[in-house]
């Protein structure tokens, strides 16, 4: 049973909540009837009152995490509803300013900014309350930004108070915050981490701005304030947008945030996030680093794909099949060509002569590899559709494609290529109206080389390990790697291997990539002769 004092406190809180709702209703009426002399001050005060009354509840809700009661959920819904309601009132006030021709620049910018601030709060708290996203909130923000930009108010500085902290900001920074909060709210960021990220964005308004000109480099968003469906999309080469949001200033600002932790403080020194555990803040840093990398990866110009007219190719799948058959003639021991000794034409080279450009079928490849076993995974013809700097596009029967998983290791032999290439399946898609599938292969090496590694130890019987060496090429020794059978992989075992004219003692390092039945590892050389 609650004590008398607890019951009294509860009743007082209920009275305060009711009073706040009344205040908002009065404010709404005053705004709609245009009775306010200073709508900015009235809305700013209403926001302060809402923050002050709900602070303890918001703090408790965010700290609570998964342990919410029904009462907690109701309170969270109430908070989300209040921010939503207040943002609508502010939007009405801003709409009056949009019609007015007499409003001053700073005053107009402030009401636009306050409304954008409230819209951001409303989006965030809808997510925290587990409510469905409401795109009309973001759309209102877009209309406000367009209106402010038409009046050249988007960069006008003004101050708003957030969580008892006066921050200098502008309409543009608050508009960007609305777009980013909506994007991050739709992901798997927890309410606690969203709160931390939001505080960082508000505190670093000077680190976000929109540009009309595109400067490639780093993570960039394309921003179209008039687009209802996709106002914020990662930049891709070829996309032309009215505005761009470069993220490098915020990326650089992350160093400032990290520095605050280096000196034992929590950035920015205010907000509900101050009471969260350090792990939550670090989680947000790691989330942002991942996001920046992903956004940047979208913007990296993909190598141009050249259609090649559908020639037949040989395809091998699985480590053992590739090692034994596809790479039967490609070993690390061969140095003939480089040393000036003409190598005898291989079966692959003979098969790829101009007289038989597309005869490298699955069957031929098996013969070339000295094996007449049936080809398990892919039984039908495989056609090369396109080639790029980094990959291949293949077409095969859907039944065959179904037997190959994403991340499967494959070897491909082209008719006019002297060596069999090794890659990883990175995408599959069905071809409409045909029982065929497109398979995208990321090339790991154009000249992979099989090698037999022998364990270095004091025993008489030394075990051997089959591997496929991938030279890092122009990227240097850091990118050299070895592919081994998943089951045979042993970290830290010292192995001896001959490559060209040299003998090396190597250890298998970190796993760089892996898929069904294979691992690609870094190679650590300890002895080279």
């Amino acid at each position, binding site marked *: 049973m609650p004590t008398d004092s607890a019951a009294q406190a509860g009743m007082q809180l209920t009275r305060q909540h009711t009073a706040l709702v009344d205040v908002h209703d009065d404010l709404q009426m005053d705004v709609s009837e245009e009775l306010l002399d200073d709508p900015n001050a009235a809305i700013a005060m209403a926001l302060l009152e809402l923050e002050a009354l709900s602070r303890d509840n918001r703090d408790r809700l965010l700290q609570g995490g998964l342990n919410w009661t029904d009462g907690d959920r109701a309170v969270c819904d109430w908070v989300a509803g209040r921010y939503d309601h207040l943002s609508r009132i502010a939007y009405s006030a801003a709409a009056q300013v949009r019609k007015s021709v007499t409003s001053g620049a700073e005053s107009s910018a402030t009401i636009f900014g306050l409304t954008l601030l409230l819209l951001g709060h409303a989006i965030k708290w809808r997510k925290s309350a587990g409510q469905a996203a409401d795109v009309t909130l973001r759309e209102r923000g877009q209309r406000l930004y367009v209106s402010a930009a038409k009046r050249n108010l988007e960069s006008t500085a003004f101050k708003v108070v957030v969580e008892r902290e006066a921050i200098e900001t502008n309409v543009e920074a608050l508009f960007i915050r609305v777009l980013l909060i909506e994007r991050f709210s739709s992901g798997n960021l927890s309410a606690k981490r969203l709160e931390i990220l939001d505080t960082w964005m508000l505190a670093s308004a000077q680190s976000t701005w929109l540009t009309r000109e595109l400067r490639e480099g780093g993570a960039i968003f394309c921003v179209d304030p008039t687009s209802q469906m996709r106002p914020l999309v990662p930049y891709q080469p070829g996309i032309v947008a009215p505005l761009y949001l470069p993220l490098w200033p915020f990326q650089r600002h992350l160093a400032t945030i990290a520095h*605050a932790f280096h*000196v034992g403080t929590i950035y920015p020194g205010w907000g509900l996030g101050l009471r969260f555990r350090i792990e939550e803040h*670090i989680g947000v840093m790691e989330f942002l680093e991942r996001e920046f990398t992903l956004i940047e990866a979208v913007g990296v110009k993909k190598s141009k794909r050249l259609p090649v007219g559908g020639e037949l190719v040989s395809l091998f799948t699985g480590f053992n099949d590739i090692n034994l058959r596809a790479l039967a003639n490609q070993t690390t021991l061969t140095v003939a060509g480089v040393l000036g000794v003409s190598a005898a034409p291989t079966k692959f080279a003979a098969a790829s002569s101009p007289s038989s450009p597309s005869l490298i079928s699955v069957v031929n490849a098996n013969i070339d590899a000295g094996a007449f076993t049936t080809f398990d995974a892919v039984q039908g013809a495989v056609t090369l559709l396109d080639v790029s700097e980094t990959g291949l596009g293949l077409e095969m029967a859907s039944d065959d494609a179904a037997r190959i998983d994403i991340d499967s290791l494959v070897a491909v032999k082209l008719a006019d290529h002297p060596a069999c290439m090794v890659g990883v399946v990175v995408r599959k898609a069905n071809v409409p109206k045909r029982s065929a599938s497109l398979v995208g292969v990321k090339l790991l090496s154009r*000249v992979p080389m099989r090698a037999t590694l022998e364990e270095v130890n004091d025993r008489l019987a030394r075990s051997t390990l089959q591997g496929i060496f991938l030279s890092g090429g122009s990227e240097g020794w850091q990118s050299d790697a070895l592919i081994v059978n998943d089951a045979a992989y042993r970290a830290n075992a010292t192995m001896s291997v001959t490559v060209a004219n040299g003998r090396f003692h190597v250890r298998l390092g970190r796993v760089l990539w892996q898929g069904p039945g294979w691992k690609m590892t870094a190679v650590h050389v300890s002895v080279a002769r």
Partner: protein
Amino acid sequence: MFANVRLPWLLTINTRIKNDTQAVQKTAKTMSKSTFDISAALNTPEKRKMRDRYIAQRFPKLAGTHRALTKTDEVLSMAQQLIEEGRKFLAIEMITLSLQEEVNQRDLWRFLIEDAFLRGDAARFKELIDGYAKQFELDEARPVIQAMAHDLSPALVNTQSKLEPVPLPNWTSISVGERDVELQQKLHVALETAAASLQAR
């Protein structure tokens, strides 16, 4: 009218002084002085504890953080791993933390200098070479750094004479412990030789 309605709990809002805000403002001033000299900012046991917790969470592999951060080779080795994993930001942060613990780690300074050069970040480069010059007054790398500075922005170098271009010192290509650059390069050359041989058939 709304303007006449005021709720009582508002009265205290603007009178609160926030210690944390002051601390961060102080941090900003310290930062402009030096990123690596944090002794003044780290002036309470609580802050030290917070920093340690941060490092332990951010770099879980750095066991016994204080000592681990002063082992230049280990820090560089870990940085290399992080870079290979595509987490350069984290690598740079770890090196910065290491220099905050022990500023006399020459190879870490050089790593950051070359990194700033490669990124074309003239402001950061200037900050770093000034700090490096202060820390290591007589240093054989000085001509190389001057040439890099001249290449990045001639205004950074206070000289009238023309500087000859020098090869990049490769301070960010780390040679530590089991990954000896010379040995790794030998394997790389052998692999390239074998690959070229196969292609030449």
